[in-house]
């Protein structure tokens, strides 16, 4: 028990067979009190949520809702070993994300025909994909843009590593091949199981990250459109998104999507609100760029899961539509600048500077914290955080209104993950090596999500290039949503083996090398 960074053996907090850790971490009086106050805030958020009868009803109706009991544990996993500014940054982000997800759930159940059944509210709801940029909703402040897949599958797996297994089994029992990506497969499983809230005036699906995602939407729309009577618009974002000759197509898809929403909700597009959101998008881009600039130095500040999870939420799901995230951006930048000025570090020893590439494991999202604490590998940035850096038009002028369609299209095309998995090998392969130079990285940790065809299809070329450039490339295989295929320890062992056999190093915290977290949330 110590105030100093790295003084604790963090592996000792784990208990075999238990879902939670043995006890909370002692971080010194100030940090422990801060951490505890944030824990209380989370409990209050959860408490407020369950006070509503419709939400209790939903907890009994929807199998995946049980995972939300694990919310405090998820935050604890991400704050392991953190002190000072780093602890605060993590809480600023995670607490806001929790609040946002709680609102999302509350709204979903308010309109859900099976629980809240508020039909007037439901008429103002537009459903979107989990993995979809919500740029196309930036000019509809009167409407609620809700994703059913975010709480049912995406967040559920972040909370409980085993959350998606049931839905994967359902999809496979229905006849889906077991070799497709488990994310869309689990989402399809939820739909086949009829375990998603039913609401909304209409829905917008998007060919998001991959072929599986595109095709999985067909399973969802079959139930949504043909059985539940919710009209669905499929927004086709071009795959070769860096090419000039696809941008008009992409912009027209946005125009069509907006017209579809207007038609089915009776609500008109609001340009004033759109440009307000555009300003926030640009501000988030500016902040992210500043953080990445810091990460190029010897004193990275917003990195690892602090960067990854927040970027995913803020860039994609929020997309300038929620003012609270702009406040969070400011707070994060303030904390980061403060720590940077004081030349602070998040762990007691930084041994390697790594770029994290590929699609990260959802059932082991706190792996980046583990990398830092166990082996001193600093995850400077990750593939999903290397998204668009383009500033979009933010002044309301006639020219910019036309430009806005192209900007929304650009953001949609450059959604997280798809901006790398689609668009040809240059965005996935070549740019990785540019980033290793820019960030002065000596190591690439390459998540190999085994069912991700776009990633595994470049396996050999990644190895060839790493060999040419003399960069340590460490493969970390996983199956995204399914820890039965490769467990968390299986993930860790790949790093452990590389560090011991190739790098000939000993861990900074040996207690973290093998953890009994098979059952852990």
């Amino acid at each position, binding site marked *: 028990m110590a105030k100093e960074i790295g003084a604790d053996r963090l592996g000792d907090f784990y208990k075999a067979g238990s879902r939670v850790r043995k006890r909370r971490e002692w971080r010194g009086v100030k940090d422990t009190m801060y951490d505890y106050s944030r824990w209380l805030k989370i409990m209050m958020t959860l408490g407020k949520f369950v006070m509503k009868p419709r939400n209790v009803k939903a907890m009994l109706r929807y199998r995946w809702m049980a995972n939300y009991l694990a919310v405090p544990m998820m935050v604890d996993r991400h704050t392991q070993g953190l002190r000072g500014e780093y602890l605060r940054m993590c809480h600023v982000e995670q607490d806001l994300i929790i609040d946002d997800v709680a609102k999302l759930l509350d709204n979903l159940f308010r309109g859900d025909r099976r629980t809240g059944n508020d039909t007037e509210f439901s008429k103002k709801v537009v459903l979107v994909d989990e993995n979809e940029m919500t740029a196309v909703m930036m000019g509809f402040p009167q409407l609620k843009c809700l994703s059913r897949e975010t709480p049912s599958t995406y967040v559920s797996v972040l909370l409980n590593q085993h959350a998606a297994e049931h839905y994967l089994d359902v*999809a496979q029992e*229905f*006849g*889906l*091949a077991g*070799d*497709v*990506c488990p994310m869309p497969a689990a989402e*399809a499983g939820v739909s086949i199981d009829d375990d998603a809230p039913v609401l909304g005036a209409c829905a917008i*699906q998007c*060919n998001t990250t*991959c*072929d*599986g995602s*595109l*095709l*999985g*939407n*067909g*399973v969802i*729309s*079959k139930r949504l*459109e043909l059985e539940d009577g919710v009209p*669905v618009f*499929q927004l*086709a974002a*071009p*795959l*070769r998104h860096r*090419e000039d*000759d*696809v941008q*008009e*197509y992409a912009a*027209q*898809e946005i125009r*069509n999507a907006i017209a579809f929403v207007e038609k089915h909700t009776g609500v008109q597009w609001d340009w004033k609100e759109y440009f307000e959101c555009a300003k926030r998008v640009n501000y988030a881009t500016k902040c992210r760029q500043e953080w990445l600039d810091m990460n190029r130095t010897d004193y990275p500040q917003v990195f690892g899961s602090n960067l990854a999870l927040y970027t995913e939420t803020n860039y994609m799901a929020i997309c300038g539509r929620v003012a609270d995230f702009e406040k969070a951006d400011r707070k994060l930048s303030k904390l980061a600048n403060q720590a940077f000025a004081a030349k602070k570090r998040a762990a007691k020893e930084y041994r390697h500077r790594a770029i994290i590439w590929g699609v990260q494991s959802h059932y082991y999202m706190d792996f980046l914290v583990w990398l830092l604490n166990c082996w001193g590998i600093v995850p400077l940035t990750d593939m999903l955080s290397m998204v668009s850096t383009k500033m979009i038009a933010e002044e309301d002028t006639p020219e910019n209104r036309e430009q806005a369609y192209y900007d929304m299209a650009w953001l949609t095309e450059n959604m997280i993950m798809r901006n790398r*998995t*689609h668009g*040809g*090998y240059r965005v996935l*392969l070549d740019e990785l090596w540019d980033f290793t130079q820019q960030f002065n990285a000596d190591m690439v940790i390459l998540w*190999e999500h*085994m*069912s991700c*065809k*776009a990633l*595994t*299809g*470049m*396996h*050999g*070329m990644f190895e060839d290039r790493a060999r040419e450039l003399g960069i340590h490339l460490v493969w970390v295989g996983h199956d995204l949503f399914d820890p039965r295929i490769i467990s968390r320890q299986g993930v860790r062992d790949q790093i452990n083996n590389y560090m011991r056999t190739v790098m000939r190093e000993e861990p900074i915290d040996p207690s973290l090398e093998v953890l009994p977290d098979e059952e852990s949330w």
Partner: protein
Amino acid sequence: MPVCGLTYRECEKLKDLKHFIFFEDLLMEAHNKLIKQAQEEGRICVAYTCENTPEPLLNLPGAFSARLRAPRTGSMDIATYYLTSFLCEYSRALLERAIEGGYNFADCIITPDGCSMMNRCVENMELLKTLGKDKEKFFYEYMEIPMKSDQNGLNLYVLQCKNHILQPLHDNYGLDISDEAIRKAVAEHNRVCELIRAIGEFRRGPRPTITGYEFHVITLATYAAPKYLLIDKLEETLEELKVREPDEQSDYRARVVVVGSEIDDIDFIKLVEDSGAYVCADRFCYGSFPGRDPIVLNDDEDALTQICRQYMQRGQCPRYMNTEKMLSRRQYVAELAKEYEADGIIYEQMKFCDPWAYEKMLGSHILRNDYGYPVLAVDRPYSIGTSGQMRTRVQAFVESIEIKKIQGGAANG
């Protein structure tokens, strides 16, 4: 097995088609003799890998298309290193063959991002510099294709074909890409389609005069070899079929439509037929539906737009994501089954194929539950060879169809 103890193929009594061995021979090598002949005649070979690439545009005067295959595939070790074992065997087989130098005959390759795996396959070919040896003008082109069938998709299709097919062919090889040249290519394409359609008609009725296997081989040859060199053989085959005597009694126990991802392995259809199921219609990539639908042109609009529209509207590729298209895909299969009097449907999917994994799952349920057809859903490797497992599954399916017939069909449970 038939009562004679032989396989269904062996006990067939249909007289051999005069050019059948010729067609079969063409499929034994990717670099077949007609490709060599066409190149000796000064034509350039445009290689492609996906049915969403409009074929007539690859067959402009002075060029011919060859859809890449990897017949007699053995080890795929090197390709598996580059692509891993999680990508479909079609993409790995093509890359392996390319690494072996098997496609050096091609003068360019044009591929849409139809699926991630095919995209990665061709990208690896490019990065590994496997094609275009000693060919200065060789080029790779990747194109975007629409995912929905609508006006916006059509505009994209036309632009992409201009930028990634016509212009590069013109710039690199000086091909005439005028409307007139395109119409000429369509006329040649249509002649082949009409012949294949006419030959396919002999699959109808209780006593068909062509086997599904024979038809598959002939159709496949039209994808893998220069079309203009096949026309005379196809015409002769058609005439031959008109007088070919059918078997007095068919040994097949059921008629099936085969639906699914690409099949360029002639052994698969052979295996299905050897197991007692006559393949009366083929709805898969490299099949004739809709790949051999003639393209009807009018004089009111440019040929390119009309070609793209027809490719987009008729396309049955599961990557088309709008609801109307999804529904029409299953309806298309049901209509084929009805038209060709099929007793059942086989949905097949190459292992690791994402698009067809989903389409097979939904299609098999919908065709069974909404349209009342017995459905067999299988996944398979690229080269099926003589898979006992697959044979057992097809045989069991045929038996189940027979039992249903005896029991009076779905109405009686």
